[in-house]
């Protein structure tokens, strides 16, 4: 099968990998680069577990062709923490926003995309921003609260 070289930045670091024709970005990140923080949930763009940021926009990496990431800047949960946890991570951790943790990476990325463009969202805006991310364990309240909490801690201003 034809393998195509692509280059992109992942969490601020240059990556170059060979991808198969038709391979999706999720698979390329997990298998070629070894970043397993984005998760395979449904493979058809309806659960949100694979959400990553591509040039700042939340994208369902299971639906995006890897080769279309050529030259893009990609962010995943694995790169969210600096020397300390990102305020979103801290708020999720303190707020019991993860139970099984499998949706958490996608939730954090959807939340970061929101706070990056809107540092002080309303509750409705938070709900809207994560409405494409399924969590099967919590009833969403701890997640919504954590995102609002992170906003209050200045998460959006920090990363903007």
């Amino acid at each position: 099968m034809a393998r195509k070289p692509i280059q992109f930045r992942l969490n601020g670091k240059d990556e170059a990998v060979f991808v198969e024709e038709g391979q999706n970005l999720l698979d390329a990140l997990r298998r070629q680069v070894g970043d397993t923080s984005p998760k395979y949930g449904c493979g058809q763009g309806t659960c949100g577990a694979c959400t990553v940021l591509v040039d700042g926009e939340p994208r369902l990496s299971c639906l995006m062709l890897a080769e279309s990431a050529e030259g893009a800047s990609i962010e995943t949960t694995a790169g969210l923490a600096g020397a300390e946890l990102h305020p979103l991570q801290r708020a999720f951790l303190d707020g019991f926003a993860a139970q099984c943790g499998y949706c958490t990476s996608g939730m954090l990325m959807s939340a970061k995309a929101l706070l990056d463009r809107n540092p002080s969202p309303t509750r409705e805006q938070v709900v809207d921003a994560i409405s494409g991310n399924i969590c099967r364990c919590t009833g969403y309240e701890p997640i919504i609260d954590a995102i609002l909490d992170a906003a209050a801690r200045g998460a959006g201003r920090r990363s903007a």
Partner: protein
Amino acid sequence: MNERPTPSAHKGAVHRPVIHDSAERHVTGSALYVDDMPELPGTLHIHVGMSERAHARLRAIDLQSVRTAPGVVAVLTAGDIPGVNDVSPVHAGDDPIFAEDIVEYAGQPIFAVAAETLQAARNAARLARIDYEELPAIITLDEALAAATDLAPAPELRLGDPDAAISASPHRLSGTLHVGGQDHFYLEGQVAYAIPGEGADMLVHASTQHPSEVQHLVGCMLGVPDHAVTVEVRRMGGGFGGKESQPALIAAIAALAARRTGRPAKLRLDRDDDMVMTGKRHDFRLDYELGYDADGRIQGARFEFAARCGRSLDLSNAIADRAMFHADNAYALPNAYVHARRMKTHTVSNTAFRGFGGPQGMMAIERAIDEIAFALGRDPLEVRRANVYPADGSALTPYHMAVTDSVLDELTEELAASSDYRTRRAAIRASNAESTAIKRGIALTPVKFGISFTTTHLNQAGALVHVYKDGSVHLNHGGTEMGQGLFVKVGQVVAEAFGIELDQVKITATTTAKVPNTSATAASAGSDLNGMAAAAAAQTIKARLAAFAAKKHNIAEEHVVFEAGRVRIGNQEMSFAELAHQAWMGRVSLSSTGFYATPDIHYDRATGRGRPFYYFAYGAAVSEVAIDTLTGETRLLRVDILHDAGRSLNPAIDMGQIEGGFIQGLGWLTSEELWWNDEGRLRTHAPSTYKIPTANDRPDDMRIAIWAKGENREPTIHRSKAVGEPPLMLAISAFSAITDAACAATGYRAFPRLDAPATPERILMAIREATGRAGKK
């Protein structure tokens, strides 16, 4: 005098809201699930070829093109299995790994392809040519009842003389309720990674709630003793019962590929395949007949249930039994008869799902009580409260167990007051009179849920605790972590026992090599069983340490006291680490197993009598809904919950279980609809067509409290109560509230006989049918 921290004041002790032990890994994306584990060189990827027919004879299976497709290393069928072609959790012999002559559901595995890449395996599988001779298929429950396809004889529960009591009652009613099934949709789908070892050895990393069963069934499949197979699970991305019996199939296929090729092999199902291939919550038909008096007190009740089991037995007997055990839900029935048939259909074999038949079993009586209240023109809450199990322990369940720990009267009244139920109900009825299209409804429903595996021998657990000479502790037990917080709770128990910080306790992956013969992490019993087993192991080590310290310091053993952050030995103090080091120097064993078997439970299935449950968990919820009577659309406006978690081991973790359980129950009863076509093909096999609650579906106003007075009357681990399953059934309040709103749409002139899930379509049909009846009056 120095201030001493009380034992419960140190971080990580019991009854405190300690964060999940994996929380930091969850938020940094570094928590490893099976599919995230680094793959060994040569790892193969597996795709499963499934039946396209619900019921057919396999005339020919032509896999020649599959074998020669690019990247394919092995193609596996039933003939490749060295041992037994069965993964039935009850050894019924009716769960073949690969179909041999007959297929009995669309989605049943026929063969598997192991290839260098998953895409290669998928592509190759499409080249299979399977020649089916179609056979008549039974798809629906009503078809199964008509054909009497009972998989197993159904036992009966009988208390008093229900028929005479119903006949003698001044009022009677009867009805039928259909309750749908539910897909687990654990975010992490089914996955197993098998690594062949020396000789016959096989290591399987599996996403399973039941490692010991996976071990045993993989051993049977390979034709090797259990000792040759090790199953390990660090964490699951959700389980909900869907990873109790189902993972054995996945692990068996991975292990077979690993055995046949000598290479590591991984099977991670694609989501659609997972939804089509693996079992779900049973849908039920519930028939009921009750007699009651003018105050709504039930005099006698008959329940005839039927469960759609799908093509094999799986856990259906225990699930249908639990449905029977919960036919009474929270209500003392002086005379009762309960029966639940277990029907075979040519659909996927249904399995455990949070509540395990209990939720379905409760639905009939909750509907019936709403109907009684309507018939008598009373508030359903008053009818409920007139029937709840009394606190004095005088009432028996239909299986002749005295309910001695009922807090239902107190708890429901407290919730009615805190939620302002009565005022709001009056306001809702007033506003419904004014509103033409939007109708609101409210309901308070209680839950009583029996805690213990009803298969008595499963109520056992083991643990293994090592204390290292630096005072740090290694904790292992037979329970599995699926997000519910079991590991942190048991860690808290051990930290409390030794008086050390939780970060001194390493909570380790569940493995069959450390604790053998474990039961599934199921029946809400994870903390009850494994917490006690770990406490027993810690107690053994503490006793050895105390004996050592007492001898060394020449004092009585009772003067060696483990306190928070220190050990007091007479009038001296030392750290736990110092004592551990001294004990090691003194050649004392610092490792112990611990074991627990739930006491005082017994049940005779033949007579339908006994004490199958150690205790009951209680809770209640008030839901307020609005329905758009033009579209059938529903909105949950407010929910108030009061739940009895005993003396909670970790109130924050338990709050998560309560809220999450409620929302999952809400999905089951309102939006999650499994739909098979006439050919028996599941058409709702992805979240695009199967509606799981999202952040948008939760009520904006949700007020949850753990009952402050809660305390287990039995000596469970620190007097806590199991909390995994019971809150799911609190969502019945939403279903009753929708019924109330639909009743308002008839002008309160007819009772709408709503089926579950209460989708917009069903709501509209129920209103139309009820309005039609009202018109004829």
